[in-house]
């Protein structure tokens, strides 16, 4: 598969919503996945950045970190009706693949504002077939959202 030069794209799924996100680095992949998710919910161009939320998660796999990061954002969206458009990944430490008990860690910040209207309601970011791939020097991942 040729890896296209876009941050993310929507892909078909019968019942739910799915995106494929791309990144030159893992932190960029994590930021683009979040951007892709919010592109389903709001008009990103019309969104301000007056609110900042910090996220810190731990998980047993790189994919687990990605899903946990996005689910933290989903939580802020539901609790505070916030939508985000800019993401800073401050720390992304992957678990040791040789130690099944080790946990990876992500620290990040998201910037956005209270959305006047959210186009849809994401119940959760799923782990469905989630796998981070590396190809032609770029990372990509497909994510399915339960809506």
């Amino acid at each position: 598969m040729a890896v296209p030069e876009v941050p993310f794209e929507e892909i078909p799924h019968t019942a739910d919503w799915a995106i494929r996100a791309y990144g030159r680095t893992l932190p960029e992949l994590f930021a683009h996945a979040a951007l892709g998710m919010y592109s389903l919910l709001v008009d990103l161009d019309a969104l301000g950045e007056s609110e900042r939320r910090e996220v810190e998660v731990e998980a047993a796999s790189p994919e687990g970190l990605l899903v946990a990061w996005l689910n933290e954002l989903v939580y802020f969206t539901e609790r505070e009706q916030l939508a985000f458009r800019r993401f800073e990944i401050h720390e992304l430490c992957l678990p040791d693949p040789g130690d099944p008990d080790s946990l990876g860690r992500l620290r990040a910040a998201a910037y956005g504002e209270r959305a006047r209207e959210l186009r849809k309601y994401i119940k959760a970011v799923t782990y469905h077939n989630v796998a981070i791939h590396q190809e032609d020097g770029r990372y990509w991942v497909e994510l399915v959202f339960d809506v």
Partner: protein
Amino acid sequence: MAREIRKQDFRRINEYLWELPREFDPRMNVPVRIYADEELLEDALGDLSVHQAVNVASLPGLVGYVVVMPDVHQGYGMPVGGVMASKVPEGIISPGAVGYDINCGVRLLATNLTQEQIAPHLSELASRIYYNCPSGVGSEGHVPLTAKQLDEVLVEGARWALRHGYARPEDLEHTEEFGCMPNANPDKATPKAKERGKDQLGTLGAGNHFIEVDVVDEIFDPVGAERMGLFEGQVAVQIHCGSRGFGHQICTDYLQRFERVIHKYGIKLPDKELMCAPIDSPEGQDYIQAMACAANFAFCNRQILAHYIRKSFEEVLKPKGIAYDVWQVYDIAHNMGKIETHEIDGQRMTVCVHRKGATRAWGPGSPGLPKKYVDIGQPVLIPGSMGTASYVLLGTPGSMAQTFGSTCHGAGRVMSRAQAKREIRGEKLKTELESQGIVVRAGSMSGLAEEAPKAYKDVSRVVEVVHHAGIAKKVARLRPIAVIKG
């Protein structure tokens, strides 16, 4: 890429049942059985539903077979319209195979009114229900809870609603599990789930959730219908919703927790969404207690919505001097994990039945059914897609023998939401529905388009399959006259 699955890979057991044997894939621990006619089987092969069922069949500790219902569609992890049973205590419990919307389900209320009596007031009634039952993204209910009250709801389910004047005793009698799952422990529900749920009691939510005012337009089983108080021309109301953000967060948080420990149990997963743990493990036990909390939240939620629907009837009809009554026929869950006893391969066995997009359909004489229905079987509620028919069925001896006491849950999608949104304009759909005499109250036109009838299979075809396969029995068909959604 996963291996292609073709019609010829199945063994046809009878007109409505197809089996994909274990030999199809060496990872499978049990066969996959699909209830479908030829056309629905082809629909099922049109997306990744059956691949997902094959993945499920590879989980450890399963018994019998993985059952796939005729309304199946591709989900995440387990297909929507799937049933699996794992042996207790050594089998597994899988939060992903229950789903994010724990105890998503359907409640049917019936009234003593006919379509003719309600027609002049229908528009006003739909508006009152839309106002009284908040829906859509970010909606908050009329029943905000303190932390202590939320914990009470999680333990008591619909009983909490009864204690606070939102229910009649017979509502609980006519609810699966009598509106309260045992073993709920609020200490096992995560703080984030509680934060998400505390303002959402009595809300409908978004997506495919709805309230619908219907007319009973055909009776197939007069004895069953009479027992449920259903008659032709009668006005009824369906509620379709679940445990809202509370349940979603329970699933999210437990999947994350399970991921950290799964290596301890030596379980190899075909898909991370099928994350699971042994039923008798500390993680498995904690999830069962947290899932019961979410199930109770959902039972209480549908009960509060039923209360506000009764209030809407009162507000509209009482000033006009129209006598009315609204009673509950039944309330069912279609996303749940339940510990039940079934006869499998000639042996009585305690199993954890995971039903995801599948309805419990216990046959006559099953312990746990209310007195009113024990000799006819459990009422099963099958909502159709918006603007099409819905069905009331009964559980049968066949569902007990073949499908761990389960049957289908709805129409099942065939078109993606993105495609539906591209092809169907919400405003146009609203006009079309209204021209068929259906009142529509919807917050989001794009949300309406995603749920268009065209995006779903034909519910009548699905119901014919379960009826002829003997895993449920048709009692009545409902036709919508008003749709209320977020």
